[in-house]
């Protein structure tokens, strides 16, 4: 066990190192330069540009820039080029904004996919299964922003309530329950939109897992014993079908930082995705690189957790 952990950590650190190099190269070798050094702004004289480049170490060779950047990152000194705020602080702020969206979205995805998927599996080939399949494919296939606009326009024109942003604007002195419920309402649409794809994929996956398990001998045995179908499905089949999903909890982790650029822009949700998008537009390299790095760390941590969970829940695996 310990040796497994040790080996994973070493391996993941090496991977992380390569990720950091690759992302650094991608960004720095692309044409164009940061907007702060925009030479077409008449206010920027060549000397100014030079001074900015010096300030941001852009005049140094690449590997020096690389070392400087990661030195700053690990000492927490990285600042955004755009507004001089600490990159980690910025990301943390946005992370807190994205968090409720992520939590509600995940809750919706996970609670909804299981009943849908299981039912599809039980009534395989029936009308329910087919329509569920069809609907989940429609949900996967619809362009996200198109769906978002259609939903927003629908809600705004028929219900006359605001849906944009973290909360309704300008009800600052309302009682706390109102504020809380208001926030929940504002979470609804974007998290549902964010969850549609997830529900569709996950429920399909649940269905196929269930089918796989239901074909096993021990299910046949359980049936033969004369157990009620409910018992068979929910006790014997479900438990074993659940196994891979336990490990999937670890894989949710990267979703924390990914956010959805498109949904966050449409709903003017000040989350991670939008910050990253704006950083790309402004060529705010420190922010782009930090987001990339943090998300790589989360991906690796996620796979690590998922491996560990697998170890814990599946007695067949021993190290």
């Amino acid at each position, binding site marked *: 066990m310990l040796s497994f952990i040790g080996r994973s950590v070493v391996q993941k650190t090496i991977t992380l190192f390569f990720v950091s190099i690759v992302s650094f190269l991608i960004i720095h070798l692309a044409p164009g330069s940061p907007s702060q050094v925009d030479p077409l702004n008449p206010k920027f004289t060549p000397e*100014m540009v030079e001074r900015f480049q010096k300030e941001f170490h852009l005049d140094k060779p690449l590997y020096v820039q690389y070392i400087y950047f990661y030195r700053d990152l690990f000492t927490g000194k990285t600042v955004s080029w755009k507004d*001089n705020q600490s990159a980690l602080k910025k990301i943390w702020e946005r992370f807190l904004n994205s968090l409720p969206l992520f939590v509600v979205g995940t809750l919706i995805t996970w609670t909804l996919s299981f009943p849908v998927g299981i039912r599809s599996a039980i009534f395989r080939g029936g009308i329910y299964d087919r329509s569920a399949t069809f609907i989940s494919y429609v949900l996967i296939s619809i362009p996200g922003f198109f769906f978002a606009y259609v939903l927003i326009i629908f809600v705004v024109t028929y*219900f006359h309530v605001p849906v944009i942003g973290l909360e309704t604007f300008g009800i600052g002195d309302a009682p706390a329950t109102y504020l809380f419920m208001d926030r929940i309402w504002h979470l*609804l649409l974007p998290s549902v939109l964010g969850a549609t794809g997830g529900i569709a994929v996950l429920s399909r996956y649940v269905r196929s897992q269930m089918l796989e398990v239901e074909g096993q001998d021990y299910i046949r045995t359980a049936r033969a014993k004369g157990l009620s179908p409910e018992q068979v499905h929910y006790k014997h089949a479900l438990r074993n079908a659940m196994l891979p999903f336990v490990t999937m909890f670890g894989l949710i982790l990267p979703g924390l930082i990914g956010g959805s650029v498109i949904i966050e822009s*449409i709903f*003017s949700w000040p989350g991670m995705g939008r910050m990253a998008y704006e950083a790309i537009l402004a060529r705010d390299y420190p922010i782009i690189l930090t987001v990339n790095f943090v998300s790589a760390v989360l991906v690796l941590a996620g796979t690590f957790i998922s491996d560990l969970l697998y170890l814990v829940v599946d007695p067949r695996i021993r190290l």
Partner: protein
Amino acid sequence: MTVRRVLIFAPILLILVLLQSYFWVPTYEQQTKGNSARLSEYIAGSIGDASLLNPILSADSASSSINDMVFEGLIDRDEQLRFRGRLAKSWEIFEDAFFYVNPSARIPGLGKADAHTLADFIKHAQKTARIKDPALKDSLNRVTEIAVLPSRIFTVSKSFKDSNTGKEQTIEIQVAAPPRIKLVLNTVDQDLFQNLTHLLGKDYFESFHGKDYLKIDSQLSKEQWTAYTQELIPAVEHNPILLFHLRPGVKFHDGHLMGADDVRFTYEAIMNPKNLSPRISDYEPVKTVEVIDPLTVKIVYKRLYSPAIGTWAMGILPEHLLDSHALKKEATRLGKDPKTFSIRQSTFNRHPFGCGPFKFQNWKSDQYIILDRFDDYWEGPPNYQRYVYRIIPDLLTQEMEFYAGTIDSYGVQPHQVKRLKKDPRFQNFSGVAFGYTYIGYNMRRKPFDDPRVRRALGMAIDVEKIIQYVLYGQGERITGPFVKQTDYYNHTIKPLVYDPNGALKLLEAAGWKRNKAGRLEKNGKPFKFTLITNSGNDLRKAVLAIAQDAWKQIGIDVYTDVLEWSVFIQERVNKADFDALILGWQMGIEPDLYQIWHSSQTNPYQLNFVGYKNKEADDLIIKIRQEYNHNRQIEFSHRLHEIISDEQPYTFLYVGKWTAVLDKRIVIKTVDDTGVIQYEKITATKTGNYNFYFNQWIKLPQVPSFMDKG
């Protein structure tokens, strides 16, 4: 079965919890009706967030619109675009002029003269009625004082980068300056020395050899010699002076009194290289900023540069919060290195204090910035309690929020104007923007070096059609580089008329004829080029398509390319690697065209990327930026406009018209001395600025009756 029940009830419960929140959310109607606080709030919608709330550091539009509310400058412009005092009550402009006595020159009627004789000679000339030349007489009349500055010897050290080795080099220069004559003028006169030559002899100033008075040990190139001579002992020198009398009793938002020291501090903060201020070039012509007394600042300039006055509209920073002492304290508090800690790192930029009408309250990145009204504002507090800047990145959602009444203003898109104008709930204002869109031709390349070709290309494009259909009528034609609503714009010049046949005739005169396939060619070479623009601007993309189509019609093969902004700028514009491009300029009110049109600015990375060169235009550009007299500036700029329009280095397309839409319930509220409250409709100023009286705006619960009359 519990598992089954849990599986079914969990999602139902979750969905119910989420859905029931609907009943707690106020509908739009409730929001606007039942909330009296909303009436005293103004909520502006914006696509982007501000970056730094510090007027000396940020140049983006979102930051500026907040900075304009929080900070206040010494002066600004009134309804007629003339300067008016804000923090400065009044100001004076005059000049000190200097010239070195030229011992070798012969003065008509005096011969070679020393400093004192020369001074007396000029004084005498002032008094006598003998002088015939009226210009010289005028110039002499402006002189209020003549003084002699004795000769002096001093040493300066200069460092520069060696062009061969690239190493930093420092040299010592010994200057033995001859006596100098100082003339104090009661106004600025750029022709002073020109006119004085009528008195002192034609080449009195030209024959002064500054180089003879310098002693440099090391080897220098000829250019460096000239540069140092020009810098250290120029034959003549103008020092325009701005004397600001500040308004007494103006307070910053923290209650601290604003004074002359704050003005000096703001200047020093901009010039401090540690702060990397993007405005540093605006203040480069300033020689010194002197505090005469707590309410008087004297700003001396190195040379004639009239646009410099406008730079004092820049917000004044509070010295007591940002001086080195305060910064050091902040750095230690934040645990940062005080040596590298500059204003750029200060938390001031996220919580500013100025002396503008609104004080900063709260800022949530990418959500909103809230400003509260400043009750001690020197002009009296604004009517609105609160100004909110909401960030909504998506245009469509912005529009929906506007309909819903949760924002008061947003950037209306051209195609929406027609619909919004019809809506009885809204009042609308339109005006002409300060920027124009053009097609620029690279005049270094054939055939664009021929003004006939450029004119013909312009004539082939139906600009009226572009304005009507692409801009939905939200644009006006423009004929030259000045802002259309200023006096500098020459309205006598008529725009090019759409005339493809005329264009063909012009092209034929330039040697381009149509071949059998209908394509234009000259000496067997077809007329073809590439037109480029940047991505992300739909209007330019539309113009690109239309221009391509229009030129195709007269037989020109046009390739088009839409490039990402940074590639477009760095690879194509900066390196002048293009045939023709579509771009826009955002103009200031000042008529200074030096960077965009002067022939010295045609090198890579400079803004005259089309390579426009014209001797007369160069002269006029210099004259305009040196002239402090408004009427003479107008005279020069009208002529310059004419020249540029004749040469057509750009096809000037259009200036956009903006339209702003406001709820009809927003009106101007004034209280006169007797306490009588009056409401009136918001009207735009002559220049189209509708929020000039923003501080007096207020939102009423109902649409007032005078609004319905139209």
